[in-house]
Each structure stands twice: as structure tokens, then as C-alpha cells.
């Protein structure tokens, strides 16, 4: 998933007694597993939280094109180049579905884009890390898409209809992304010494940033409790992080690569691995804008938007002329 630390409005989950009749009816629908559709009544907080979350997710898909786009022109074979192009194209498509889902809540794509470009809206911290070697294309697919899937699979059951349907389409493509990433890693891990070193280096650099994708522990967070009550968030950050580690460690072993955590140990009692927390101070710095690539990523998106202004204006002016000519002819 690509949404972290999404703030919900309000101060916590209201009890039934505190809810208005409308709120109580709304919560009852959610509890019964019904989907909420755009024209249905919804609490303002639900709408706002969803806009933040879906918007952040959409922006992550868009900014997420950059670290992988960085290697399309240097892909080592024609097949790898084609696969990577297809993957990045999918991501732009995911951005499109998600913006459409958010638009049903009354915010336009242009408004959301402006908010991304001036820093009012966020995107996932992971895309503020650089892709330095070809192995990073493997690590991004394997770890980053792998972590994203952990979150997106349960979100297929989220309470907001358009978001849930967007997630169903996204998930189908994401599993292909993760497989292609793992396949790149496998080729490299079984390749020559240089390739193997590159693969290990990519794992070393992406491991902790991937763990950060789930966000800090949210057991005490009022925002998470409200989002979970609304079924906008389906699992706690810690549950998903644990699941991700348990799934990924055996894959790393299969590749013959070592996870960069000396505290990593199977815990028989809990039936999962014990592992080290990522450096949360680093995480908060990245969120604040002080990660390795924040400035460059936002600058690239701003440049694309500014340089493209004449194209958008030109095409709109043409559409307008065409309409005027058609009306004059009628």
C-alpha cells in the first residue's frame, strides 16, 4: 500500500450513544459489510479521510513511476525493457483508477495534483529512495510491490465501493509486478559474483525502507482505530509488517541472500519472525521532506506539469474550437 499515516478527522471512534441517527445507520451498514457508494450519505470525516488515503495512494503510483523509469533506458535486454515499460505503464493506469475513485468523493484530479505538487498531499516514503543499480528493479518489484500487495489485498474488501473496485483491478496487476521483481533478483542471485553482490546490496538498501511502508506502530493511534471502524483500513500496521517479514524471509533464503538484520530470528511461540524495527527517526525525516530523493522527485513532477501546461491548454483550446465549429454548423 502506498498510504502512510493518513489522518482521520475527529478524536476517536464514537460510541453508538454519541452518534447521530445518520451516523449510527451508516456504521450499521459498514458493520453489515455493505458497500458505501458515492451518492450515499456519509460522515464528512469518512469522506475527508478517504480523499487523503486514496489521493496519497494515487500520488504514490505517479511518483512511483520515477524510480523505475530511471532504469527503462538502461534495461539490460529487450525483454527486460518491455516488461519494465509494461509495469510502469500499469502504475500510471493504477494512478488513473485511483484518481477516478477519489473524484467520486468530490475532489478533482487537477486539485489533487496541485496538492501533490505544492507538498500539501503526500506519497509513500519508499519512492524517496534512489534506484542505483539494475538490481534495484528487482528489489522494488519484490519488496516494494510485495509490501504494497500485503495492504491492497485486504483493501479489496474496503467499505467504499469505488475504492474497493479499483483495488481489485490493481491487485491483479500487482502480483505480476512482484513476480517480475523476484525473477530479476533470481537471475542476479544465480548470476556471477558482481550480479550477486548487486542483488545483496539492493536488499540491504531496500529492506528497512520496505518495512517503513506499513507506517509506524499504530496500536495507540486514534486515527487508525477510526479508519478500522470505517473499514478503510483493514489491518494494523504491525500485523501487516509481521506478515510481510514472514513471507519475505524464506524468499530471501531461497535466493541465497541475507536479510540485513542480526536480530532476525524465528519465534516458535508466536509463529513468526522477531525482527528489528526500522529507524523511525529516518522515516519521519523522509515524511517531512528530508529523504534522499524528496526534492528531486517533486521537482521532476513539477517540471513535467509546468512543461506540459502548453500541451494541456493547446488541446483544450482545440476541443473548444471544434465544439464551436460544430455548433455553428448545426
Amino acid at each position, binding site marked *: 500500500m502506498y498510504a502512510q499515516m493518513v489522518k482521520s478527522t475527529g478524536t476517536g471512534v464514537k460510541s453508538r450513544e454519541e452518534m447521530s441517527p445518520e451516523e449510527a445507520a451508516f456504521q450499521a451498514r459498514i458493520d453489515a459489510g455493505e458497500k458505501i457508494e458515492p451518492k450515499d450519505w456519509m460522515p464528512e470525516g469518512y469522506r475527508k479521510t478517504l480523499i487523503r488515503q486514496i489521493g496519497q495512494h494515487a500520488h504514490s503510483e505517479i511518483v512511483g513511476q520515477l524510480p523505475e523509469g530511471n532504469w527503462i533506458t538502461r534495461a539490460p535486454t529487450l525483454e527486460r525493457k*518491455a516488461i519494465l*515499460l509494461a509495469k510502469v505503464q500499469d502504475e500510471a493506469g493504477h494512478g*488513473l483508477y485511483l484518481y477516478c475513485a477519489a473524484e467520486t468523493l468530490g475532489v478533482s484530479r487537477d486539485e489533487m495534483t496541485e496538492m501533490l505538487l505544492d507538498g500539501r498531499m503526500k506519497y509513500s516514503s519508499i519512492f524517496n529512495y534512489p534506484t542505483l543499480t539494475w538490481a534495484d528493479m528487482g528489489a522494488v518489484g519484490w519488496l516494494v510491490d510485495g509490501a504494497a500487495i500485503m495492504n491492497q489485498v485486504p483493501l479489496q474488501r474496503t467499505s467504499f465501493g469505488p475504492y474497493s473496485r479499483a483495488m481489485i483491478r490493481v491487485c491483479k496487476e500487482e502480483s505480476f509486478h512482484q513476480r517480475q521483481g523476484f525473477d530479476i533478483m533470481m537471475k542476479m542471485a544465480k548470476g556471477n559474483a558482481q550480479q550477486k553482490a548487486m542483488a545483496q546490496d539492493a536488499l540491504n538498501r531496500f529492506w528497512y525502507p520496505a518495512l517503513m511502508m506499513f507506517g509506524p506502530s499504530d496500536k495507540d493511534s486514534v486515527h487508525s482505530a477510526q479508519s478500522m471502524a470505517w473499514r478503510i483500513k483493514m489491518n494494523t500496521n504491525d500485523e501487516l509488517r509481521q506478515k510481510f517479514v514472514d513471507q519475505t524471509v524464506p524468499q530471501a533464503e531461497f535466493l541465497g541472500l541475507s536479510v540485513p538484520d542480526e536480530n532476525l530470528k524465528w519465534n516458535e511461540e508466536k509463529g513468526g519472525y522477531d525482527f528489528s524495527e526500522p529507524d523511525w527517526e529516518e522515516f519521519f525525516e523522509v515524511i517531512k521532506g528530508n529523504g534522499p530523493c524528496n526534492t528531486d522527485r517533486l521537482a521532476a513532477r513539477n517540471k513535467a506539469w509546468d512543461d506540459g501546461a502548453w500541451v494541456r491548454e*493547446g488541446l483544450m*483550446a*482545440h476541443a473548444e474550437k471544434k465544439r464551436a465549429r460544430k455548433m455553428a454548423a448545426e
Partner: protein
Amino acid sequence: MAREAAFYEFLLRMGDNTLILGHRVSEWCGHAPVLEEDIALANTALDLIGQTQMWLGLAAEVQGAGKTADDLAFLRDAWDFRNLLLVEMPNGDFGQTLMRQFLFDAWHVLQLRALTASSDDRVAAIAAKAVKEATYHLDRSAETVIGLGDGTEESHARMQAALDYLYPYVGEMFLSDAVDAALVEAGIAPDPAALRAEFDATLARVLSEATLTLPAANRARGGGRNGKMHTEHLGHLLTTMQWMQRAYPGATW
């Protein structure tokens, strides 16, 4: 010219066009003016790289030296490339990229359509698949050229500048040499000059709708499809594209 040698040259010409243009278009990834254009550009690049795999795959087979399409793409130097100069020209702004695409697509569709009747079944099969993609590319690039040409004052000026810059490279598409003569003789490919009239008609129609003016026809700038004189741009493109294969020789990816 011997038939096999001419055939190999022809396959390189087809495959290098799509390889180099596909690469150029892929440079846009993540930087397009709107999301729909990011998707469309990636899609175009993807089609072109797919066509490259087929053309260069067949070239390697015809060459018979045990090479692969990847060897041809990543391990030849600039003088061995046989693409039109047009496709190696830099992206420039979005208008220049789409004008380059339109000029190429308008020729590519005619070429592929003719190749579907090639005496060589393998060529005809590749062309039959590629012509569907190219037709779609032409619809889109022509529509964009029209939209931006007949848009605002600024978009019009930018599209006219792009056309003025790129038009001198159009003539190369229609130059014939000994390779072409051998291919025509064998019924493999059409005479390039034979495609000119229909190409000019497409151009006239689209440019008029786009309110753009065709520049005066200067001497055609050639040297790409025969490899005699590429532009300075190609070397830089290859430096990026071939870097992995050059830096880690023999590794599999």
C-alpha cells in the same frame, strides 16, 4: 547485391527504426504533460520494442552467426545501425516528440501495409501484427498534431517549429539504394519511392487540419539507413542503452 546480405540489411533497417524510436519514446516515462499521455507514450514504446524483438530476432537468424536480437541491439556500434536519422533525433518538447512520431507513423503504416504482401512469409507475418499497432499510433499522433497545431498560439508555434526542425529528415524514408533494388527484385519489400505519394497525401491532410505549413523541401538529409553518417545524437543514446551489456559482458539478466 546478394539477396541474403540485402535481406539482413533490410531487417536491421526495420528493427533499428523501432528500437531507436522505442528507446526515445521510453525516455518520457513519468514526465509527460498528463497521465493519459504517460500511459500512451509507454504503450507506444512497448509496441515498438516488441516489434524490435521480432525484426532483430529474424535479422539474427538470417545472419546465421549464432547471435540474438539482444546482441544486435546492445553490442553494435553506431556505424552498424541502420535506422532513419529521424528516429534518433532528440525528444525536445512534447510537440517535437509527437511530430517525430507522426512523421514516422505516416511512413511506417504504408511500409508495413506493403510488407504484409511480402514474398517472405516471416516478414509478412511480422508486418501483419505490427501494422495494427502502427495504425493505432498514427491515429493518435495525427490527432495530437492536429489538436496542438490548431490549439493556442503557443502550441501552434511550437508545432510549426517542430515540423520545420524535423522535415529535412523525412526525405530519407524515400531514398532507394542497391539494398532496396535487391528487395524489390525478390518481392520482399516495396520500393521506398513508391510510398511517397500516399505519404504526402496523409501529410497534406493532417497538416492542413492542424493549420501548419509544410516547409520548403530541401535536400533530404540521409545517412542513417545506410549507416554512412548518423547524427551526433545516436552515440549518446547507445551509451545509455548499451551500458549494462558493455559493463557486464556475458552476464545474463
